[in-house]
Each structure stands twice: as C-alpha cells, then as structure tokens.
C-alpha cells in the first residue's frame, strides 16, 4: 500500500515537472511507443487484454495485469514488463516471437529508470473488485440443477398398472407412456440370467447354473440368484474394477522408467474387500479421503489389516517424473491430478478446470481450487504399516513388560553386588571411575552463536515430528533405559547415556518412519547427527518423494555403517523451498529403491539432532571437557577426597547404590549415574544374577526372542500421512511462480460456503472428508447411483457420469435420479441393496429387441423402454475366455500377476514377461503398469490410468478382431475349451455342442444350430484333411475358436 502511495506521488511529481516534457514526449513517441505498439499492443491493447494487461495507456500499464504491475516508474528491478522483455526465468518471455534487440531493452530500461514518462492524462483506474466474484458463483449455483438439494419425488401414476414391479419402473414408465410407446417385451430367461451374471460378477453363468435356473419352478428363483451373486466374492472383484477406473489405479509411476508404486495392489484388495463387505458408500469414501486420521480405524479381523490406512492409497496413483527441473511445478501437476480425481470420482465435477481461472461454466472458483490444494499439499506420502497400530502397541507392551522385569531382577542382583564393591575395587580404579563419569568430552555440541536453526532433537523427544510404524511409534529412549542383549550372562548390555531416538528400541525387525515438521529451507545446509544400519533418511522437497538421480539422488542419505556421526546435506539449490526430513528403516522394495541389498528391512537408525546451518562444517567436537549433567562437585570431584571423611571407594559405592535404585525403579537418571553404571558393567563389577533370578531372566530373554519370531511381518502400503497444515495461495493463471491471495483450506463454496474450515494442526483432511459425505451435499449420492445405474443398464441417467456441471449432459430422469439417491442414503448407503433394487425391476428384464417405430421415436433409448446391447468390457471378455476354457483360477488377492507382453512392447522399465494365461487369475489381478499395459485389455478399451474414467469408450478397431483371431492366448483358450468338451462328453457330439453353447452363449443351441455346428466340423475336417473331424480335438478347437469370435459371445443382449 505504501508503495502505491509513493508511486502516485511520483507520478504527480513527474506530471508537474514540465521543463523537459517536450523532449521527453518526443523521446517517448519516437523510441518507446513504437516498440510497445509493434510488439505489445496486438495482445495487450484496446482489442485484447491478454493476462488482463493493457499497454496502450499509461494508467492501465501502471496498474498492470493479473500478475502485478507492468511498470514501476523509477524502479527497473520491479514490474513485469522489464522482466518479460529480458526473458527473465521468473517472468513471461515477451514478446513471444523472439527477444527484442538488446539496444531496445536498454532503452526501455532507461525510460523506466527516468520515471517512465508517458504524455497522457491519468484516467480513473477501474479494477474488478473481488466482491463481484460472489455474484457469479451464486447465480450459477442457482441456475444449474446439480447444486440443488436432493428431494424425494412423488411416484407418478401410470396407465398400465400391471407392468411395473417397483417405484423405479413407475418413474420410467410414466415417461415412456407420455412418449406414446410402451416397454418392449420381457427378455428370455436365459438372456436375463446371462445379463445378470455379467452385471453382477463380470463372468458368464456355468452350464450347471444355467440348467438349474431353467429347471427351477420357484417364483423367487431369480431373486435367489441375485442374492447368491451379491454374496459371491466375485461381486467385489467385478465392481472393484469400476472403482479402480475412477481412481486411475496403477502400480507404476509411468514416465521415463515406469518405477513401481510399491504395494499398490493392497489398495485393489482393499476395494474388493470393502465392496464384498458392503461397506456403506459414505464410509468408503470417508476412509479413502482421510482414513489415516479416523479416531477409530476399521480393521479387517480375518486378515488383521488396517483398512482405513489402505483406503488412502488412491491419492498416490498419479504419474510422477523421475527428475523434474521445477519441483514446485511438479507438485502442482501432482496435486492437480489429485484434485481431478477428488472432483470427478466423488462429486462428478470438473474442479480442475478452475486451475488457471475461475471455472468457465460451473459454480467453481479458482479460490475453490486452491482451497482444496492446501489439503493435499499438507498431506504426505507414506508406506505405512498395514498391521493395525493397536497390534503393534500390544507387541511393544509385551516387550516393555519383559524389559521391566529384567531391569528389576538385574537391579536386585546389582544391589547385592555393589555391597561387595569395596572388596573388589582398588582406589585407583574408583578414582578413574569417578573421573570418567564426571566428564562428557565428546557429547556436547556448542551451537550457541552459530547460524543454525534446530529442526528437532532427541532431547526434547522430537516434538512436533510425526511417527509411523512400530519402530517409530515408541522409539524414544530415555537416559538410563537399558539396552537388552540376547545373552543371559549379560542381559543388560548397557544403559542409554543420552536421550535418543532408536528405531530398534524394541527390536530390529520393527520398521517405521520418523518425519520432521515442514520447514522452509532458509539455510544452505542440513545437519543430521544420526547413525544406523540398513536405513536412510531423505530430504523431501515440496513433497517430491521419488528420490532418484539425477538431481534428487543426493537427497537420500544411507545410514549403513552403524556409527553415529554428523551428516551434511547441501541444500543450496533448494533454497526457499518447503521440505521435510524422513528417517526410514523399511525395505528397499517397500520404498521403491533399487538398492535391495542395502535396505533389507531389519536395519535400524538412531537420531540425536537435526538442524539447518549456515556453514557446511558440522559442529566441531569440543576438546574442552564439560561437566556431565548431574555431576555435582560434591559427588564426583576426585580432588575433594583429602577434605572429606569419605573415601573414594565409599563414595563410589554410595553413588552406585543410589544409581542402581533409580535404574531398578525406572526413575529418571542423571547422565553421570548412567556412565557410572556402564563403567561398572564394563569392568564386570556388575554382572548378571545367578540362581533363581538368573533362570528367570534367561526365560524372559527366550520369551523375547519368541515374540520376535512370532512378530507379524511388517507389510506396508502406499497411504496418506498428515503433514503440517499449510494453505496455498491462488496461482495466477495457474502459474506456480505467480502467487495471488491466500486461499484458506475449505470445501467448495457452492456446497459448503466460503468460510475457512477449522482444520487443526494437520492437513484437515478429515474435516474435508466429513463435509464431503454430509447428506446435505447434493452430489455424492447422485453421482454414485448414476454410476451404478449405468453399469447395470448400459446408459446413465446423466450420460456424463464424471461431469454433472453445466457442460455435462442433463439428466434424462431427474426425479428417478433423486429417488434413487434418497433411497440409497436412507438405506444406509448400501451398494448391494441398491444393486438388488435395480436388477429386480421389470426394466432390467426387458428384451433388447424393439419394434422399428420405437427405435425411430427413441433411437438412443433415453426412455429405457428396452435393454441396451453392450459389448463385454475387456476384463469380462478375458474372464469369459478363462471361464469357458475351464481354467479359471479362483484365488483371490495378492501382488499383480505380470502381463504377458508381446514383442511389440519395448522401452525403459520393461518388466519381466508374465505367463500367457496370467496363471488363470481373474483380470483384476493382472498387474497394471502404466507404460506396459496388456495389449488385449487396451484394445478392448481398458482405460489409461491418467485420470478418472467413469465411462470407458467402446471402440471398434481391427486390432480387436486380430486379437480374437490370432492372439496365442485366445487360440490357446479355444484348445482348452475343446479338451474340456471332449473330456466331458467323449462319445456324444450333440452333448458337446449343447454344452459349448451353454458355456459360450448362455443358452442351448437350436436343432438348426446343432446341425450347422456339425456341418462346420465336417467342412473344417475336409480343409484340414482329418478322418474323424467330429472327435478331432483340433477341429473342435477351431469350432470353439469360432464361438469366441462370434458376436453373441462378445455382446450382451
């Protein structure tokens, strides 16, 4: 503000000085205005004001554009214009056609230095006030249907009362009737059954299932089938894949080397379990957004898995570069992708369109976008333990009990031993014991007066740091805490001499991570005093966690050789960036690190101190001994003996007895006490107790070993962990280098108002998640029921399922959509019950075959007066091939099976080749690697995991036919199919044909069809020159192969 006043004053002065005005005016008109006119006015003139900038008038040139002032008279170091023409990396490069000649730039600079004389009257400045923003948003919100509350509609009256079997049917029928048509006839039973199987479990019914259904005269037979399929594990396997489309599920990061996203498959398994358990949808998305922050985590009891942690994995399926030159822009892209998923998958909104400007059509402002940005910026990537924390706490508590008992019993022994001390110890030894205890020569680091900033220290328990995994949860060791060994003859190896953080405090097999608060890199060096084996620390800049060479390799520091020492990381090139430090002792595989040998998982680390420093030298070890804490002169000063009644030996005994009492009771100890005990342990003056206590201690150590052996394996999964809460500023025109006003974290204005949220000290994601699933939010339920509808009926009520905004398709049946949404919420957000209601409608049973006039009146079947013919999705096609060939492997869950790549798939990061048949596993269990997708799945429109896909394309390309005709997987399935048929009916050709039809088409053949199949066997036998074609497995394979290529196999009626 002061600046602006100064400027106006400056202008006034310039305007009043008239002495050289004419010369200046001439200079301006000759040298300056022509340059501006030739290079700038076209885009920044009267007709166009790109970036909100106009340069043909003094007033507007001074006001500047979106990114600030263009010209600041007298100040060549300010203003965008000079930066732009100099092609400064922080500015725009203008003019875009090429840099101006150096001479011209110098002249512009001189002109500005001289006050930017511009002979023009100052006109009243006009600027858009931010108040007007509210208005457009409100009016868009009011004018578009999707923002309105969900209301339960009246169920309309219909003329044909007998037809509908539910309210849903009546809502549809009333529209059909008003279009003067009627619903088409019901489909054949077997057609409906096949439709039901593919809709619910993504695979065809078996011949046995078909026949049982056909035979049944139970009026509730269909309903029973529905319930059976809903309860089948295959239901989750099928529906999970649709969810994975929405969260761009991938197991690799794409880009140059297609690095792994370690353990991504655990999220896939989580989704399958959640759907099979019919987890209420509001819970489902609540835990995905913020499961890590829920006060009560949801635990899958059978698998002992923390589902709430696994749920947050989806945030990390975006692509990532190996070595971005601009790490902040990389973060912006990454978060943009997260916002895109959040907006489209949960809300059916294109929020990411508001990245560079307010949304062009919807009630979403750029402020909304950056308000959300803050949540994701405040969230960190973590490979978190999948074993519930409560379980780890039990483990640690058991070890803690053992430690206490060992401590007590050893202490008892020591107490007895210390009484013997005067008989065992010489005066000289006592003297040196006292001397060594009083001095701590190499511990203290003199930092006072140095240019340093502390980020954390063990001495204050790493206050404000975040811990994840069992090794980090309770990894702090206090002064005097014992270190237990495995040898019953030396159960306490020594006591901790200083407070420290030690990831092996409760055993080396435990793993975890310790993360610092977010800090701005304001000093050139990071100093870390730490040690460890098989562990490391990373400096994570702007949340960029792919720590790899080039550029980022130096941000990973291995802690491998055990010794505690200062480590220095040069952060000069990252000055001003936000960062955090993370210490990890997880396996290389879990961390996505190629160095498998160095990080085996049973490593450990200990950290004393972390700080930022102005100097590159670690704090020097002081030569001058300092007095140890607690070493009061009266106790430890060896020179006092002469003046004292007490002998050195007696004093030692007294001090030791006192220290042992404290140790035994677990009371706070002084460093000097600890050093004294450690001295006595070293000199074997304190030893393991024998007898009863000794035996018990040996048992306790054995029990401790047994506990370690029965420890659940440390398994981890990509998940969210809270960082420090930080708001982001609006990026002007989406440019991360051009910051506008701060956008405090909150949910969308149009749904939840524009007040900042109470976010606590973390990211605030949990509050966001709760607002998201608030029943008053008009979008979440609507968007979801619409997706489910689309999966079951082949056409959605809102045909743009990921975009309910103004540019999306309007709903064909708004009342029906609201009816479904409100029923869904009232019914506990249950997917299974929603599906059940939908497939038990009359509408689901309709035939796809409709009279011509109906097709003419409603060519797109917007009225749902008939069923839609659908091509099988890629997964259903492959699963059908497996099912019919009798080689479906029902095994569930686990790491992705590598895809069989043809020789046309090449490139960096190519994985080993998988088996042709994918081990017979269902398609959802095939690995999804961004740069190496399965050619079969891709050809049949399995989506690229770039962004949310609520509606796959259904293409029709020659590659599909070529695959079905020639791909070895398909040809191989046909052979197995033939073997299966011949094995089952070795004698009966017609029975084989019958079963083949049931398997492949879900119906029995007509007599003509049986006849023509027989005819094909014969003719194919002639072509191949076979004597007995009807029993020849190769000829049968040809027949089965033909079935696979028939459209009836590929399409669902």
């Amino acid at each position, binding site marked *: 503000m002061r600046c602006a006043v100064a400027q106006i004053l400056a202008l006034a002065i310039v305007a009043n000085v008239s002495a050289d005005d004419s010369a200046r005016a001439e200079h301006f008109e000759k040298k300056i205005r022509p340059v501006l006119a030739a290079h700038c006015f076209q885009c920044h003139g009267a007709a166009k004001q790109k970036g909100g900038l106009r340069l043909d008038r003094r007033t507007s040139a001074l006001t500047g554009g979106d990114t600030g002032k263009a010209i600041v008279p007298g100040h060549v170091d300010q203003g965008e214009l000079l930066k732009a023409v100099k*092609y400064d990396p922080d500015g725009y490069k203008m003019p875009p056609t090429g840099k101006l000649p150096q001479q011209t730039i110098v002249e512009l600079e001189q002109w500005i230095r001289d006050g930017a004389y511009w002979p023009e009257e100052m006109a009243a400045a006009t600027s858009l006030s931010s108040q007007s923003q509210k208005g457009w948003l409100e009016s868009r919100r009011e004018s578009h249907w999707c923002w309105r509350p969900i209301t339960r509609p009246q169920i309309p009256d219909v003329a044909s009362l007998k037809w509908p079997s539910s309210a849903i049917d009546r809502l549809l029928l009333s529209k059909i009737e008003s279009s003067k048509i009627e619903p088409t006839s019901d489909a054949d039973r077997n057609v409906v059954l096949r439709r039901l199987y593919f809709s619910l479990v993504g695979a065809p019914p078996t011949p046995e299932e078909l026949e049982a259904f056909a035979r049944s005269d139970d009026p509730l037979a269909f309903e029973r089938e529905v319930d059976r399929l809903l309860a089948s594990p295959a239901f989750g396997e099928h529906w999970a894949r649709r969810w994975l489309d929405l969260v761009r599920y991938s197991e690799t990061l794409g880009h140059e080397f297609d690095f792994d996203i370690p353990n991504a498959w655990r999220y896939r398994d989580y989704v399958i379990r959640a759907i099979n358990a019919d987890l209420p949808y509001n819970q489902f998305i609540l835990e995905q957004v913020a499961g890590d922050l829920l006060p009560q985590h949801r635990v899958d009891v059978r698998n002992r898995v923390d589902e709430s942690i696994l749920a947050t994995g989806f945030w990390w399926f975006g692509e990532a570069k190996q070595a971005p030159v601009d790490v902040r822009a990389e973060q912006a892209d990454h978060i943009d992708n997260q916002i895109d998923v959040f907006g489209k998958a949960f809300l059916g909104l294109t929020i990411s369109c508001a990245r560079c400007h307010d949304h062009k059509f919807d009630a979403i402002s750029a402020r909304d976008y950056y308000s959300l940005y803050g949540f994701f910026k405040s969230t960190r990537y973590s490979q978190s333990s999948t074993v519930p924390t409560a379980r780890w706490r039990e483990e640690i508590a058991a070890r803690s009990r053992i430690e206490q008992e060992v401590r007590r019993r050893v202490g008892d022994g020591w107490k007895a031993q210390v009484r013997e001390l005067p008989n065992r110890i010489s005066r000289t030894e006592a003297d040196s014991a006292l001397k060594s205890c009083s001095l701590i020569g190499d511990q203290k680091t003199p930092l006072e007066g140095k240019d340093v900033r502390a980020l954390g220290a063990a001495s204050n328990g790493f206050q404000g740091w975040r811990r994840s995994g069992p090794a980090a949860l309770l990894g702090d060791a206090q002064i005097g805490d014992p270190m237990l060994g495995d040898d019953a003859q030396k159960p306490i190896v020594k006591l901790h001499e200083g407070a420290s953080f030690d990831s092996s405090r409760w055993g080396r097999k435990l793993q975890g991570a310790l993360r610092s608060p977010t800090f701005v890199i304001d000093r050139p060096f990071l100093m870390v005093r730490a040690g460890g084996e098989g562990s490391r620390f990373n400096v994570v800049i702007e949340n960029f966690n792919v720590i790899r060479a080039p550029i980022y390799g130096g941000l990973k520091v291995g802690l491998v050789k055990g010794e505690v020492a200062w480590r220095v990381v040069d952060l000069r090139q990252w000055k001003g960036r936000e960062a955090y430090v993370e210490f990890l002792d997880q396996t290389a595989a879990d961390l996505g690190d190629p160095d498998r040998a160095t990080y085996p998982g049973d490593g450990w680390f200990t950290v004393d101190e972390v700080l930022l420093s102005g100097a590159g030298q670690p704090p020097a070890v002081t030569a001058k001994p300092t007095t140890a804490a607690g070493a009061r002169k009266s106790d430890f000063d060896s020179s006092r003996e002469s003046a004292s009644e007490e002998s050195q030996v007696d004093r030692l005994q007294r001090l030791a007895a006192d220290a042992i009492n404290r140790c035994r009771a677990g009371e706070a100890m002084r460093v000097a006490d600890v050093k004294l005990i450690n001295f006595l342990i070293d000199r074997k003056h304190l030893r393991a107790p024998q007898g009863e206590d000794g035996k018990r201690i040996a048992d306790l150590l054995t029990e401790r070993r047994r506990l370690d052996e029965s420890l659940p394996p440390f398994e981890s999964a990509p998940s969210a962990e809270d960082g420090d809460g930080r708001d982001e500023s609006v990026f002007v025109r989406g440019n991360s280098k051009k910051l506008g006003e701060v956008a405090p974290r909150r949910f969308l204005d149009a749904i939840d108002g524009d007040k900042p949220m109470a976010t606590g000290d973390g990211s605030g994601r949990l509050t966001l998640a709760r607002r998201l699933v608030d029943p008053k939010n008009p979008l979440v339920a609507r968007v979801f029921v619409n997706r489910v509808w689309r999966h079951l009926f082949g056409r959605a009520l809102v045909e743009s399922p990921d975009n309910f905004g103004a540019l999306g398709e309007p709903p064909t049946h708004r009342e029906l959509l609201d009816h479904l949404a409100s029923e869904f919420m009232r019914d506990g957000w249950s997917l299974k019950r929603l599906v059940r209601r939908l497939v038990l409608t009359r509408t689901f049973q309709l035939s796809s075959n409709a009279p011509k006039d109906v097709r003419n009146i409603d060519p797109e079947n917007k009225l749902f007066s008939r069923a839609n013919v659908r091509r099988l999705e890629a997964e259903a096609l492959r699963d059908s091939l497996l099912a019919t060939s009798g080689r479906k492997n029902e095994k569930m869950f686990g790491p992705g099976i590598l895809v069989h790549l043809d020789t046309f798939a090449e490139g960096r990061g190519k994985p080993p080749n998988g088996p042709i048949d994918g081990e017979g596993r269902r398609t959802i269990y095939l690995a999804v690697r961004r740069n190496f997708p399965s050619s079969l799945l891709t050809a049949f429109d399995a989506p690229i995991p770039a962004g949310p896909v609520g509606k796959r394309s259904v293409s029709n390309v020659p590659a599909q036919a070529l695959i079905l*005709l020639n791909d070895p997987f398909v040809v191989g399935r046909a052979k197995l199919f033939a073997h299966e048929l011949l094995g089952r009916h070795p004698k009966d050709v017609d029975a084989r044909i019958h079963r083949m039809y049931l398997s492949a088409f879900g119906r029995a053949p007509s007599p003509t069809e049986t006849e023509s199949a027989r005819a094909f066997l014969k003719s194919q036998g002639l072509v191949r020159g076979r004597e007995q074609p009807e029993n020849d497995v190769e000829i049968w394979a040809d027949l089965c192969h033909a079935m696979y290529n028939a459209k009836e196999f590929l399409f669902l009626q």
Partner: protein
Amino acid sequence: MSDQTFWRRHSRPSRRELLQQCGNGFGAVALAALLSEQTRAEEARGNSAKGLHFPAKAKNVIFLYMDGGPSQIDTFDPKPRLDRDHGKPFADRIEPTQFNNIGVTLKSPWKFKQRGKSGLWISDLFPEIAAHADELCVVRSMTSNFSEHTNANYFLHTGAGMQGRPSMGAWITYGLGSECRELPGFVVIDGGLTPVGGKDNFAAGFLPANYQGSLFRPSSPPVANALPADPPPVQRNKLDFIRSLDRAAVARAGGCDPMEAAIANYETAFRMQTAAPKVADLSNEPASVRKLYGLDEKDPQTRIFGAECLLARRLVERGVRFVELTCPKNSHDRWDQHGNLKAGHEDNARAVDRPIAGLVQDLKSRGLLSSTLVVWAGEFGRTPFAQGADGRDHNPFGFSIWMAGGGVRGGFAYGATDEFGYRSVENRCEMHDLHATMLHLLGVDHTKQTFRFGGRDMRLTDVHGKVIKGVIA
C-alpha cells in the same frame, strides 16, 4: 470419445459412421463426400471438428522422430561464437538443467558448410541430407516447455506435457480420415527405441481408439497378431462359419448396430492380415532403391532406419495418412548425449543420414514430395555448454527442427537463436506453432478442429498456436 458424442454414435450410428469406425478407411472420393456430410452433422451438434477448412498443400505426413534431442549447434545452427569461447566459462546466464553438471563452453566438433543453391548451413554430420539442402526448411527458433524427456515427448507428440492426450497422428487421422481401406491411418514404424513415455506418445487419448497409432515393425509381419494363426483356407472356413453365426445373432436381436459394426470390423482385419505383411515385404524393391535407402550399408542401424524409410514411402503410397518413424537402438542412448557427444552423434547421424536422403530423393522422383510433409524433430535440443567434459545437457530454450516437401519453403532457415545457440530470440516458435503449421499445410484450421471432452472443446494446440507463415512456400 467425447462424453456427448460417444453415445450418439454408438446408439444411433449412421452406416457411414459405423463404417468409418470400423474400417478407418474408404476410397478417396467416397471419403470426401462423406466428410462434408460428416462435417455438417458434427456442426449440427455443435462439434465442428473434422474435414478440410481450406485447400491442402500436403496429404500425408512422415514424421522422423529424433529421439533424445539432437544438438542444434552441431547440425543446423552454426555458432562461431562457440569456437571463440571454447573451453571458457559460459558467458550467458544458465537455466536449471536436468543433470546440473555444468561444464565450460563447448564448440561443435563438426564443420559447417553452406549447401546447395540456397546456401543453407548444414554440418558435416549429415553429408547425404546436405545434398538435399534446397528441399529443407529449417526452423532454428523452436522451443519446448520441458527439460524432461517424458514431458517433452508428450508435448512434441500431443501438444500437452502429460500422459493421456491424443497424438498429432491421431488428431490428423481423426480430422482427415484415411485413404486406405486395408491399413490404419496412423502408423508408427518402430525402429527399436520406444520413446521415453511409451506408447502414450502415439495414443488416441480421448479420441476414438481407431485413431491411435498402430505399431509396425520394419519386418514381416509388421503388426502384432497380423500373422494368421491358421493357414488361409482354415481361417477362411472359420470366418465363414463365424459370419453365419453372426448373421443369425443380428437377426435375432432385430438388427443391432454395434454388432453389425463389429462384423464389418472383421472384414477390415481380414484384409489387414494380407495387406500389412505385403506392404512390409521389401524384398521386391529393386536393388537401386535398396541402395538409395541404405539397405545394403554395413551399419545395421542404417539398414534398420533405411527399411523404416522405405516402408514409410510404401505406406504413404497406399494412402496411410500419418507415418511416424522411431530411431533404431545403438550402443549410445538415443540422441541423448550427456557425454561422449562426438561418437554418439556420429553414430546416430550415420543411422539416419542416408535413409532420410534416400527418402527425400525417392519421394521427389515419384512426385510424392509435394504432397508429403516430411518433419524431422527431436523433443528438445542440447546445451551449448558442456555437461561434464564432453556431453551436452537438455535444452528446450532454442533448437532446430526441419520440414521438407508438403508446401514448405525449401532451402530456407527460419528464426534464430542467440549467439550461443542457447535461446530462441528471433521468430520464436513453440510446439503448438509447429502443430498449427502442420495442420495448416494439411488444410486444417487448428482452431477449428476440436473434440468435446471433459466439458471442453479440446484441440491439438489447446488454446495456443499460430501458423508459422514464414515457412510456407
């Protein structure tokens, strides 16, 4: 496919649309007639996307993709200042680089000469291409927005530095269709090096999948699964049986458009099985042609790229709209010489020099050059200062590409970098401008060719791009 148009096409596709989706091809006359009809239909639904906006100069594109980023200052952009400054600290401000291992100013190890009647400067790296200097239109002021291979590749290929957008070949085929009924409209000839970023560089993105690049190998069979699993009569009999099954199924369904489209698709696939191996069979080309393309050279990489170039010509002859060539593998890492510049660039240049010269020559003598736009480009250039001792790092701030044929001005250098060859300073061009220009030469207005997706009218050039008028003949 777009949210809106997708459903319409599939629920109520006209026969024309169906055939177009299936076959991706027609005779030229039929295509033209249909395109105008198509355009009207698209306009009627607010999706004016396809077809010619003005007379085309070029009909086809051959895109010679120089993977890894060849150096401009060692090829088409001579800079005497570098000779003077050689070994000295770099005299201009240095932008952040990929490897951050900045050495001293490094002169070009190759001599530049003026070539042809036009006097176009070309270095000794390309003696054979240099012979066709008068056909070449070098753009010396190209820029990219990215220093990383993947983003820069996506940017060059799709106009956006991210995964998932349609490749320019897909856009062009979407706009113009194919003139070949047996082969895909967009073919990528795979020399062995898949660009960083993978097949997404050739993807159809949100466009219908039939516009995606089909990967061909310069070998027979050239396409995955194109080799019939069965001997022809066996397969034919099978196909006849399949057809009879399908006819019955469609009849039972009371007529079914998507199924009929899939049936038609089988015919295309069947034809492709014959056509693709045939077009890729180079054995009948006369010895003179083989020699011209370098098929008899000692260097195996030259032979591979020669075969790619010859195959490209054969595909263009048959009406394939857009052919992209990727580089063969050699012992260096593509054109990406972070070290060992001399040996690396020499090997890379040798692999492509004769084949490209042969291609230009052959296209010219067959009268195809005027209607075929040849584009030679990498994703970025290289730094005029060394990386380490003898390499060059990525440089997106100014580099050279060239075009030939297809209506461009031959023997001409457009735009300029600064005296170091580091930053583009005169007539600065962006990738969007290159794309706009390519579309323009093909008769398409880049601002008008759109596709509605995710709530926006998407373009190859997004909201950017201007036609580089100066390069048009």
